[in-house]
């Protein structure tokens, strides 16, 4: 069978599993939410309202129905592409996700760009003299950034650049004095398309600190991955053969070793993107970034079942999609990969 047919068969197999996986995830989150003590009324009203009022509100929100009935409605809505309404304000869950997800994706993509550039630069820097001072510094950088607690790093960055120096905002996604740009929800893109410099600048100023912090924390992974794989590639037979053919070291590294060393980094990039789709919770909370992870955390605390269920299902679907795409890209780029 040709490679292409193998690939298509693999893709079909992966996609065939998606509905089953999503059903399992949706059912699990449905069950776990209801098993957890307390319900949305308890979260919303605490001890405030009398019992009759609480029961009336439970009835109004459909929370007094049989569990099986609630599950049936939930699955039926899901099959029709409906994610329900938030219990706290009856806003469609799609709208909640539509507002929060672009915020997380914007943050994640910019952070990933910073992480890739910084990480690859650091990972590459010590290659000229292995075990030298630069290489040692690169290794320490990789380990150090990976080990940093995200919330601590974020608070230190906030303290230095926002509070002490006052250069950038403490948190939030957009200046309070400006109207956010309308469009896709990606403020940088929307403001560029609108040609509004003030909006673009405002969005960028608010993005710098959280994206830089997250990018710094992720860069260590890239640095270590590139360093290790490049080391391995430079020790391999085909590189030795290239050197013996009289090629310059620069050409050997850039044209032979580096492309092969980047393939595992591509896989790591895919895993990182998949994890960022769900948002970087600690960064979002510290910087008051209204992303999907922050919204999920809020919804869990409020026991807002539809919002939690909707976010988990949507994020799971996106993660699956991204992982399939990454697998395909690796397969297309690396002829050694077979299915």
């Amino acid at each position: 069978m040709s490679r292409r047919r193998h690939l298509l068969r693999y893709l079909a197999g992966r996609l065939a599993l998606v509905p089953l996986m999503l059903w399992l995830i949706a059912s699990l989150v449905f069950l776990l939410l209801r098993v957890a003590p307390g319900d949305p009324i308890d979260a919303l009203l605490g001890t405030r309202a009398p019992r009759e009022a609480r029961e009336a509100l439970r009835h109004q929100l459909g929370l007094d129905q049989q569990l099986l009935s609630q599950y049936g409605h939930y699955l039926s809505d899901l099959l029709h592409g409906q994610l329900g309404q938030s219990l706290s304000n009856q806003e469609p869950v799609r709208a909640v996700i539509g507002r929060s997800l672009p915020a997380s994706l914007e943050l994640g993509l910019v952070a990933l760009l910073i992480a890739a550039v910084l990480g690859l630069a650091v990972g590459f820097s010590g290659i000229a003299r292995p075990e030298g001072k630069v290489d040692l510094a690169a290794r320490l950088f990789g380990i150090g950034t990976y080990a940093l607690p995200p919330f601590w790093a974020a608070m230190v960055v906030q303290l230095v650049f926002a509070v002490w120096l006052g250069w950038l905002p403490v948190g939030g996604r957009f200046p309070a004095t400006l109207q956010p740009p309308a469009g896709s929800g990606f403020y940088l893109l929307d403001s560029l398309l609108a040609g509004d410099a003030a909006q673009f600048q405002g969005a960028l100023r608010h993005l710098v600190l959280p994206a830089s912090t997250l990018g710094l924390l992720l860069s260590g992974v890239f640095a270590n991955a590139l360093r290790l794989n490049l080391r391995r590639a430079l020790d391999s037979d085909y590189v030795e053969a290239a050197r013996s053919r009289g090629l310059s070291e620069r050409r050997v590294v850039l044209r032979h070793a580096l492309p092969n060393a980047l393939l595992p980094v591509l896989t790591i990039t895919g895993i990182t993107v998949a994890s960022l789709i769900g948002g970087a919770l600690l960064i979002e909370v510290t910087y008051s970034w209204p992303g999907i992870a922050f919204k999920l955390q809020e919804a869990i605390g409020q026991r807002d079942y539809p919002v939690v269920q909707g976010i988990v299902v949507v994020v799971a679907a996106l993660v699956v999609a991204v992982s399939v795409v990454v697998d395909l890209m690796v397969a297309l780029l690396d002829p050694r990969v077979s299915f």
Partner: protein
Amino acid sequence: MPWALVTLLLAACQPPHQPDQLVVASRSSLDSVDPVDVTSFAGGQLLSAIGDPLYASDAAGQLQPRLATALPQLSADGRRARIPLRQGVRFHDGTPFNAAAMVFSLERFRALGKLSYLLDERISAIRASGPYELELRLTRPYGALAALLSSSNLTPVSPAAYRQHRRRSLRDRFVGTGPYQLVRSTPQQQTLRPFSGYWGPAARNRGVQVVTLSNSTALYGALISGEVDLLLSQGLESDQQRELARRSGRGLLVQTVGPAVEIGYLTLLSDRPPLDHPQLRRAVALSLDRRLISERVSYGMRSPLRSLVPPPLPGSHPPSWPAYGPQQARSLLRGAGYCNGRRLSLPLTFRSNVPADRLFALTWQAQLQRDLGDCLQLEITGVESTTAYRQLDKGAFPMIVLDWAGDYPAADVYVTPLLACSRASGFRCLEGSSAAFGSFWSAPGLQRQLQASEALQGPALARRLDAIQRRVADGAAYIPLWQTAPRAWAQPALAPPVFDGSGRVVLQQLHRRRT
């Protein structure tokens, strides 16, 4: 290097903080600005600026007519109230405010409001008895009716603007009669502009931006860096509040303290061991060193409280619960057979997601160890708050520390919800609020006393509440601990913020000092 340059460039291009607009920060985001959805303090704060209830409580705790022109006129039997309404008032969309609009708003709140019980418990019917007169039929006489109607959730909304939203909420728009118009609203930011057609005194600023920052560190940092003009204390840790108070003392900030609206208290499960003996419960009440607890838990910012009603409401003074008396506590415990080689072990539950509760549990445990270690010891357990609320009415907690904030500034909303009992057997509450709140305590005749007190006002109410609280203190199924007063800190260029009687900052009074 390029990264640093970009940062410097962005910093250099920092947009100026608009001098005529003020930025107010708080911790809670607002998923909806509709009065039927608002349940949080932050939501109430916003509604108090963009809405206008019939009455409002001023900083001295006095009720003043707002959209009403006089206090409610009660019928002889106290079951009918007529309220004259202000004329010449317009909604933000230009439509006139009148009795029909008020009826629409109140009926809508009864149908959709998450806090609809505020009306359902007290008001059986609402009608317009004239173009500018409202008539309410009450379920029973209620002396604090005006206070109830001062709730910001009961602010009227424009029937024209909410015509399509009779049966569902309008999340991101608000059309009321308040001094500010809501120009723009997202869960994290709300923009308020003064309403040019407002019937009352104009706002003293050109607008307010209300922003949400999701953690106390960001809030604190935003005030210190000058990014926000005013910070409200909800959501700030005690350490940060103390530091802000210190900065205010040095003139770096301006601080104002509002009236206490929240109390912290202990609920003791009175119908089963180990606290089914009143003597033991009184010993527990005497064992609390509130001054020490206040210092350790909140650096003194949560003042000790020995009454269920916070000042300045009637019934808050004189305090009914006993002061700290370890010798008296020891004597009571000895009388119950403890202290002579036998210790009473009491489980105390605290809400694990509320830092002050945890600090209280640890402090009191250590204080008891110091003062009554041979007689009494605490076993403390943390439970997530939603879980705790769910289990309260099942008698799951022998002792639990909770807090309570009244929905409006009236004494009975601090007393009745904790003590009401629709079915009692002696000192045991079988059904009612007392069971729902986990104490299961009542007393013969207490329910009649509570109901009778609802119709009273002034000194008669204060005397009745005093008598009720003495009985409750004697039963010791509830033990007040502290009162929490809201605070606000502002940049030094601003005049001190002003609080109303509901503990909310009067945003229209915010202004920059003349230099």
